[in-house]
């Protein structure tokens, strides 16, 4: 920690940080989803028969009806449509790209729920809701949803 003095009597600001190690687990279900992205370039969802909905990312239980979904896998298309988007114009260390980039909600064919992902391959000005996109998979794995690197226009 170092000190920066400012002009109020006796008051100072100590610059420092808060850092602690973490080790997160995707769980059995999340692992299957990520491994499918990584090794087979496939997007998997789970279907709740009771709610008649295909969810992605997958979840073990339906939060609304508590049906068990972990064996109700559905293979989804690698193509889909942009249902919503924003152009991120600020930079920060948690962001996966330098600004400006497109963060969109993408509903892949076969799914009922869109999920957030990056769209590349077009000018940020040209993105539109309804645009058809396809998945481009990452060459190097991060063991997260970023094993699907981004979507680009079909």
């Amino acid at each position, binding site marked *: 920690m170092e000190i920066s003095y400012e002009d109020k009597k006796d008051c100072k600001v100590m610059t420092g940080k808060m850092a602690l190690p*973490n*080790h*997160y*687990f*995707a769980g059995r279900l*999340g692992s299957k989803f990520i491994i499918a992205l990584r090794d087979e370039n496939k997007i998997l969802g789970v279907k709740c028969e009771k709610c008649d909905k295909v969810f992605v990312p997958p979840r073990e239980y339906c939060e609304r009806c508590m049906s068990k979904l972990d064996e109700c896998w559905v293979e989804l298309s690698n193509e889909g449509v942009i249902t919503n988007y924003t152009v991120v114009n600020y930079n920060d260390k948690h962001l996966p790209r330098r600004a400006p980039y497109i963060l969109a909600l993408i509903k892949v064919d076969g799914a009922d729920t869109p999920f957030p992902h990056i769209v590349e391959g077009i000018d940020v000005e040209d993105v539109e809701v309804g645009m058809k996109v396809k998945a481009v998979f990452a060459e190097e794995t991060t063991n997260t949803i970023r094993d699907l690197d981004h979507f680009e226009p079909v």
Partner: protein
Amino acid sequence: MAKKNRNVGIIGIGQTEYSSHKEHQNQAEMVNEAVRYALEDANITLDDIDCVVHGNMELFEMVFQPDMWHSLGSGAYGKDQFRITTGGTTGASLVCAADNLVASGMYDVVMAIGMEKLQEGHTTGGITNMADPLWFRHLQTGALTATTATMMMEEFGEERAKKAAMKYRILMDKHACLNPRAHRRFGLEYDQADDLMNTSPQLVGELRLIHMCSQSDGACVMILASEKKAKKMCKTPVWIRDHITVHREETFNNFGIEMPEMTHHYAARKLFERNGIKDPVEYFDVFEMYDPSAWWGLDWAREFLLLKDDEHIKLLEDGEFDLDGKLPINPSGGVTASNPIGATAMLRPAEAAMQLRGDAGPQQIKKKVKHALASGFGGTLWSVLMMLEKDLDWQEVENG
């Protein structure tokens, strides 16, 4: 306080197994497991729940507002929700909160969820982070300190104190070995005491690894309902009679020459006074205590039970804290066995309630259990103390 707007009963309890690792589940899935068990236990569905109270420590898993993500498993979708955290006491605070929320009449059925997945963070680092960053954070090592061990050795002699702490530890392990959900079950025998006293690795001074609580993953869920609903929904509701929460100042500046009254003692004194309990060892049939280490567990038994001098050590030596003793302590195996921190203080009333219901499993106390005491510990020696009853038959005390 004793003067409640309406009575509140515990109608459902759900717990995951506690273990050092749950790689197969993410946080929300782990929460969901305990939620499902609790709903099953209460024989109700999510539709019956009005409100969810969630708690764990953000910086253990380093998740900001984790209830948002955990809502995938917590059943909070579409419901009222609160999130309360108070360090180690979190689990107990959640039960107190659920009790208040039901007693107030604002909600009829409230589900309290305590969870921690300590494997996903660094427990001691996370606890160290409670200290003031300007001073003491550089020095503190989580909850590890041998000050109590040192003071007990001074008071009772090194040998008796060390033996007593180890006897307490082995007793806890014996209880844990009965509890199918407990995390650490070593199968320790009393004849190992001398060996363990000298060979278990030292963490801090005479606080050895064997004395210290575990770091566990797990979730605990309790469902509380108003008297009317509890009686309708549940055959054996357990009643929350009263609870008290006592915090103390931030710094550990009490390791001088004279010790001030401990929060545990203060909490017990106030709670028993306003409920007319003269002799807690006589009155209670089980005490589930938040005992972060064998040293603290034994020392705190004296504080919570308002005992004097070496009465607590004698009770231990005489086997009175055993399952068939006068006041069994921690049939669950306690915190040295299982410690998912945000849930740990809820495991106490959860086990106590199961003991009162008589369905605690292999660790069930054989004699009749009618009155139970449960404690939580957190922060800089904060204390929560709770009284649970099998029957709704206690007498209100004047000026309660």
